[in-house]
């Protein structure tokens, strides 16, 4: 019974925070196949670690830590081209609908998304957390750096993204 209750609780929490899976995968993977693989690996790691989730942090904070760690490892790993045998559709998440939302989001969000994809893996994680409106303490805890360091890095990344966004928008409109 304990096992079934854990499954139910895990699935319910995942359902509540499912967009974290997609957002992190979208920031680190260019194509849908890689996003599928990454989401599968993330859910597997989340389930593996679920027994140690003690509720001291919010589930979304805990989930972000694991999702970002898996994404960065996946991004750096030579094994990211190895395909798992279970397809993402069997695994239970429909990415096509989410991809359509991103495609219909407008030039500003699409350009921003592209620019985020050009950042280093660690800066990418910071800016996703910032855009998701986590507190500085929250994402300093996720990343494992000081709050001051977070503030200065976010300031730098925002300036860079804003500058590059203007440049790309100007190119698009000429």
């Amino acid at each position, binding site marked *: 019974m304990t096992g079934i209750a854990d499954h139910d609780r895990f699935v319910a929490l995942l359902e509540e925070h499912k967009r974290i899976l997609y957002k992190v995968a979208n920031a680190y993977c260019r194509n849908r196949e890689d996003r599928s693989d990454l989401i599968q690996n993330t859910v597997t790691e989340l389930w593996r670690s679920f027994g140690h989730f003690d509720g001291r942090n919010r589930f979304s904070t805990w989930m972000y830590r694991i999702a970002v760690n898996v994404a960065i490892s*996946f991004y750096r790993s030579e094994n990211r081209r190895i395909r798992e045998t279970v397809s993402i559709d069997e695994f239970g998440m429909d990415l096509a609908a989410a991809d359509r939302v991103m495609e219909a989001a407008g030039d500003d969000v699409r350009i921003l998304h592209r620019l985020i994809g050009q950042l280093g893996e660690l800066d990418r994680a910071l800016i996703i957390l910032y855009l998701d409106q986590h507190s500085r303490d929250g994402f300093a805890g996720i990343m494992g750096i000081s709050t001051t360091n977070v503030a200065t890095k976010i300031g730098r990344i925002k300036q860079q993204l804003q500058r590059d966004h203007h440049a790309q928008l100007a190119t698009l409109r000429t």
Partner: protein
Amino acid sequence: MTFENLQEQWVACDKKLDLSIRLNTALLRESLVSQARSALRWLSPFVVAELVCTLVVVIALGAFIASHVRDVAFVAPAIVLDVCAIGLVASCGRQLAMLSALDFSAPVVDVQTSLETLRRIRCRTTMWTLMLVPALWIPLLVVGLEGVFGVNAYSTFSAGWLAVNALFGLAVIPVMVWCSRRYADRVAQSPFVQRLMDDIAGRSLTASTASLDQLVRFEREEALAD
């Protein structure tokens, strides 16, 4: 347009994402039960297999040394091989300890530092193993022939032949490194072969060191932007 405007649009897109993503909870529940394998955990069984095989070699070499303890001509190469095998056992043990301690729910910088350190250990181990095999092939021949077939390599082959081959083995190492650096891109057909050649050439170790440096810089406080 300010960054804050971009953030507002991002958040609005986020809300639509939340509505659009469908999670089939029944299928998800089933997949949890079937314990889906994570691509990130592929290393553990591989390291365990490596450890078990190397332990068998250490034990076999120990038995060989004990049975030839009065014969320096056989004990010396066996000890050299045993020291290398014990080094490999120690490396596997350290890797397994790091793998079992790996916790993806820990802060990102800590986890990535652990992973890169692990990768560095693997790169070094692979590099040294691949480079030492040609240098150790004569000790392997001497111990292998005597231990497995009861054939005395010193009687079968001349001292000159053994010496030349030992030197040849040593000379192969820089050639191997040079070839890996020069021809890896042309020859490698698979990621596995590519990785081996990167390990021999030291590129994997260099990449891993660069990643660790990047993590250290990321953790360091930046000067406040103007």
